[in-house]
């Protein structure tokens, strides 16, 4: 008995790649299709879905029924989405503001030190995000690490009420995803030819101009990649909003989690996820375009 083998080269290539197609299919494609299908079904009050088609979940994103059963515009969820974007953009900008100098500093170190610093950057990933976010409750909370010395010194008399605010969520998100900003920026800075910096100073550029005219344009791909790597998980985050925002200040991610875990409205959760997915795809298309443009300049040896 002989094993079946494809005859053509293309067929053989396909067979070789088959494991990866299977993995992507099982772990990515099928769950996504299930989510897509669920978003068009009726919710089962006990969890799960009922096999009846409906667009109610999508309608619910924008409208609600008033007492007379009329559809009226409901900005509630739009507001949550809007807030999610605001917070995610804020956290992304904070990550960029902190992450770029860190990446730049590491690049300037001697080579053997660089690897050690990169290793330090990745250490937080060893511990569960939930636990690390809890630590921020201790830092920001009433009588916490920040407030206690200020209270004791008499600089403030009452709690600063830092917890359960948008600021607390932004801090939590920034903390969670900062390494995802540092690593890609470092990767592109490391490839930077530092002789170009000398050339720029030789041509009368001051420090700021060296940064804005040479360094930042040349590591733009790293900056864009870092921003996307931070922005997308921020949109879907629910640990920081739930713990540091107290669950009152919902974000898109916590809303999705709430629909599946508590509200038992799976189709609505699935519809929200589809919306999130659409946003991510749009952002990634933007990135692909930018990367292509950059490659056109840097490529063709």
């Amino acid at each position, binding site marked *: 008995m002989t094993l079946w083998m494809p005859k053509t080269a293309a067929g053989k290539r396909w067979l070789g790649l088959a494991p990866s197609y299977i993995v992507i299919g099982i772990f990515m494609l099928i769950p996504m299709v299930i989510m897509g299908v669920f978003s068009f079904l009726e919710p089962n009050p006990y969890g799960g879905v009922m096999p009846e088609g409906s667009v109610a979940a999508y309608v619910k994103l924008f409208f609600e029924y008033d007492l007379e059963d009329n559809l009226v515009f409901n900005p509630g969820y739009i507001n949550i989405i809007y807030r999610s974007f605001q917070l995610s953009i804020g956290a992304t900008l904070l990550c960029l503001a902190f992450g770029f100098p860190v990446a730049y500093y590491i690049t300037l170190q001697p080579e053997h030190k660089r690897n050690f610093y990169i290793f330090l950057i990745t250490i937080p990933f060893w511990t569960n995000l939930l636990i690390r976010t809890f630590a921020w409750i201790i830092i920001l909370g009433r009588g916490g690490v920040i407030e206690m010395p200020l209270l004791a010194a008499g600089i403030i008399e009452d709690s600063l009420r830092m917890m359960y605010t948008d600021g607390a969520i932004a801090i939590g998100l920034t903390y969670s995803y900062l390494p995802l900003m540092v690593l890609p920026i470092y990767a592109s800075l490391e490839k930077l030819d530092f002789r*170009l910096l000398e*050339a720029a*100073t*030789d*041509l*009368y*550029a*001051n420090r700021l101009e060296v940064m804005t005219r*040479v360094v930042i344009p040349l590591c733009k791909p790293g900056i864009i990649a870092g921003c996307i790597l931070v922005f997308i998980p921020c949109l879907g985050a629910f640990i920081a909003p739930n713990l540091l925002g107290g669950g009152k200040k919902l974000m898109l991610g916590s809303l999705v989690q709430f629909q599946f875990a508590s509200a038992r409205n799976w189709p609505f959760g699935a519809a929200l996820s589809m919306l999130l997915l659409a946003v991510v795809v749009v952002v990634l298309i933007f990135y692909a375009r930018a990367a292509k443009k950059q490659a056109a300049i840097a490529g*063709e040896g």
Partner: protein
Amino acid sequence: MTTAIDIRDVTKIYNPNSNQPVKALDSVSLTIDDNEFFTLLGPSGCGKTTLLRLIAGFEQVSGGEIMLFDDEIENLEPNRRPVNTVFQHYALFPHMTVAENVAFGLERLKKPKAEVQTTVERVLTLVKMKHLGDRHPNQLSGGQQQRVALARALAPSPKVLLLDEPLSALDLKLRQAMREELKQLQKETGITFVFVTHDQEEALAMSDRIAVMSDGEVQQIGGPTDIYEHPVNRFVADFIGDTNFLDGEIVDIKDDLVTCRIGSNSMYEAENSGGHTVGDHVTLFLRPEKITLSDASDANQPDNRPGKVANIVYLGNQAAYTVDMGDGVELVAQARPREDGKLPFAIDEPLAVGFSARALRVLVQ
């Protein structure tokens, strides 16, 4: 004549506080005149690039002063020094077009837009690159990138242009063509050029004056013929061109000639450069092109000695002959192939070696 750059007692020590400090420059002093093509020549590690980087401001002096047209500049940031550099590997900005690269310095100097544009066009025309202003550097050949780097450094009209081995990455033909162009460019612009190279041929071909450096010190400063014909020491004589060295002892001094014993008992007369006494151990040097090889029958003519061919290296337009002069003395000489392409002498063939005492010079050991 105005002095463009005055280097006074400049010392540069790398890692001064570590346990392995490296002395790259040891109290170097030299002056470069305005409108001069000045070359810093030496083997790698001699400190020539360090000196250039100190003038540009990329490194800080450990001691001494650098004056640029009577202004002390050694403590200024590079972006405040009116000098520009052509880098060894060009260092063109890959994200900018050729024209944007050339405009970079002018824009930093806040020149008006119209002036920037006319200057960019003028310098790009000067280096014959005007038609490629819209390209990116990676779409250019090495020679074209070289021209853009030149244009970029010339555009802000620096008081001094620093060139760090700019031709070393080009292939031979292009390098030779660029030599002439660089020299021409220097004349046209009237800008002082400070050119760093390890290629002695390049230095001789282009420079008004050359400073030969080794081990962080200036060995000799002079015009190309000075350096080639009258090197002050063995290092300079050896580094510039091919040379025969004969080690010996002075046995007699007449007015303008010294007689030296070379080997066990061969006597050679050389030009008296002054300041020698009988018994001095000296090195004589003799350039191969000053030696005439002829048939053995001429060996008794004045200024001729008998010899025997020990080795031949064929170089196309000429051949380098190693001639055994007896008594352990060997001389390298040149001869042209005959019209039919055959070499004039064969290995082991006896011949006459002719050179005048004027061609032999004395170096103090």
